[in-house]
């Protein structure tokens, strides 16, 4: 049971990291800090506007795959992965 609890803790820690990034790119960069960030530019995009309409979405995609990859490793580390044939 202890092993399972340690696994769950590690999962929660990873989740906290990912959700912080999720919050930062969308709510912080795309909404709360949009005005100061708009003073910077990415090509023709104002930076805050870019985060709100493009950057946050790309980050979400990377985040989900990163989480999936890390969790698969955690599963093996703690020996709670599914049978291989599936």
């Amino acid at each position, binding site marked *: *049971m202890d092993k*399972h609890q340690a*696994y*769950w803790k590690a*999962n929660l820690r990873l*989740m906290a990291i*990912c*959700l912080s990034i*999720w919050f930062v790119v*969308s*709510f912080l960069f*795309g*909404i*709360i800090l*949009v*005005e100061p960030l*708009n003073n910077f530019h*990415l*090509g*023709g*995009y*104002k930076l805050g*506007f*870019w985060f*709100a*309409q*493009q950057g*946050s*979405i*790309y980050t*979400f*995609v990377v*985040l*989900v*795959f990163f*989480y*999936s990859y890390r*969790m*698969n490793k955690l*599963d093996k580390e703690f*020996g*709670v*992965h*599914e*049978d291989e044939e*599936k």
Partner: protein
Amino acid sequence: MDELKLYTYIAVFGTFGLYFAIAWWARAGSTSEFYVAGGGVHPILNGMAIGADWMSAASFISMAGLIAFLGYGGSVFLMGWTGGYVLLAMLLAPYLRKYGKFTVPEFIGDRYYSNIARVVAVLCLIIASLTYVIGQMKGVGVAFSRFLEVDYGLGLGIGMFVVWVYAVLGGMKGITYTQIAQYCVLIFAYTVPAVFISLHLTGNPIPQIGLGSTLADGSGMYLLDKLDLVVTDLGFKEYTTAKLGSTLNMFMYTLSLMIGTAGLPHVIMRFFTVPSVKGARSSAGWALIFIAALYTVAPAVGAMARLNLMNTIQPAASESLEYEQRPQWFKNWETTGLLKFEDKNGDGKITYVADKEKNEMVKVDRDIMVLANPEIANLPNWVIALVAAGGLAAALSTAAGLLLAIASSISHDLLKGVFRPDITERTELRASRVAMTVSILIAGYLGLNPPGFAAGTVALAFGLAASSIFPALMMGIFAKSIGSKAAVAGMLAGIGMTLLYIFQHEGIMFIKGTAFLGDMARNWFFGIDPKAFGAVGAMVNFTVAFAVSRIINERPPENIQRMIEDIRIPSGSPEAATGH
């Protein structure tokens, strides 16, 4: 028959033929195949199916138009409808897949060891899904009447028949494989015009890059700067900075859409179809890639369509278009009533400005931005035909997913789960097909005679999903101490609070004149739009559930505690989904 119509018939009925062929090939023989496609769908294919399931007529037709007119404020839809998948991937999908049964209310009923919880979840699911499906049915009717000049009702009937064939025959299995085909049709139909328009305006074929590039007209000006200039000249708000209400409203709106997305049962259900927990995790990533393929193009489509529209009506500063010289697409859309001109100052020219007194474009329906875009940009006829087929694919695929969610909650949760647990698998399968047929008929009827509340569809569906289903599922996995009474109290409080706020603004069930507390200021709660209230409802749900749990000191029984322990780890994943 003119060329455009011929192409449109070929595109629309060609794709319908494809869906029928797939439906025949993927017939369902067991309840497991009917509810979860036998649980053997590859994660990438499931990701594609989720993409089509998720991207509705609203995403395909309305979203770019919304962004075109809201500018930066439209970002709430872009972030909200994609960010929800991050929540889904980490907080719900893997655990619900591990649990390994058929429906969302089934999990809620088992986890909270309560048929009341299960029935409350079924009711939320049915209301949310049914209101959502009305919008799809209307989209089908509109697409037919505009592109094929078929009567709205007949168009709706054809759409209902197509969905009926593959949803009743194949259940989840048929729906999955048609959704994969529909995804390909819709993404192709969305991307092709966008590439052409981006190439034409900026010389760059990739719309996401074109939006941030300089214009190809030799001015060397960035497209977005030009757009800002054109719209502010006419008195509209600056495109790249126009907010949707306050910063707080945008924050809550985005959060509500994210939580609502993660709580919509027809999307969650799709995660039951993959073979493993690992598959559920990666499937969410693939789904998001396929969704992002449209959602990162949409802001380019919106901005470019707005610029094209402005340039057509106002070719140069203080030089308006003569009404008599309006282009063909303008005339086409005038006949549908979605575009309206009124010569207020009698000069025969079109004045399009923000000032309502002087503005002569009295109606520019936002939905035409995607549908008319190829015409505005002078693209070939086959591209326009493709957009018609794509819009129909988006509407039909989402309708099928919603109808399956409704049918399975009736046959599996209400009939088999609560009222007649003794029925055989064959009877249940037959019942789910009957439930599906009845749901399609009801959805069709409501599409033909939209009730008052159809207008508030999105607010209601997302509000309910965010304030009831998402918190119940999340606490079910992450908070072992929450028992049945606390969960039911939380759900009822969350729904109650959300409905109170929506109905106070829009009227009870959106019936005009029943808005109680009518003399209150609009958006009275910190200026938050009723559509953005789901997040507040969710917080109420969490708070009430934890408070009740603390006060009555309720602990779920031992076997439930063990079940939660079990869904938290991937190993020992049940084969329950195969069902036989």
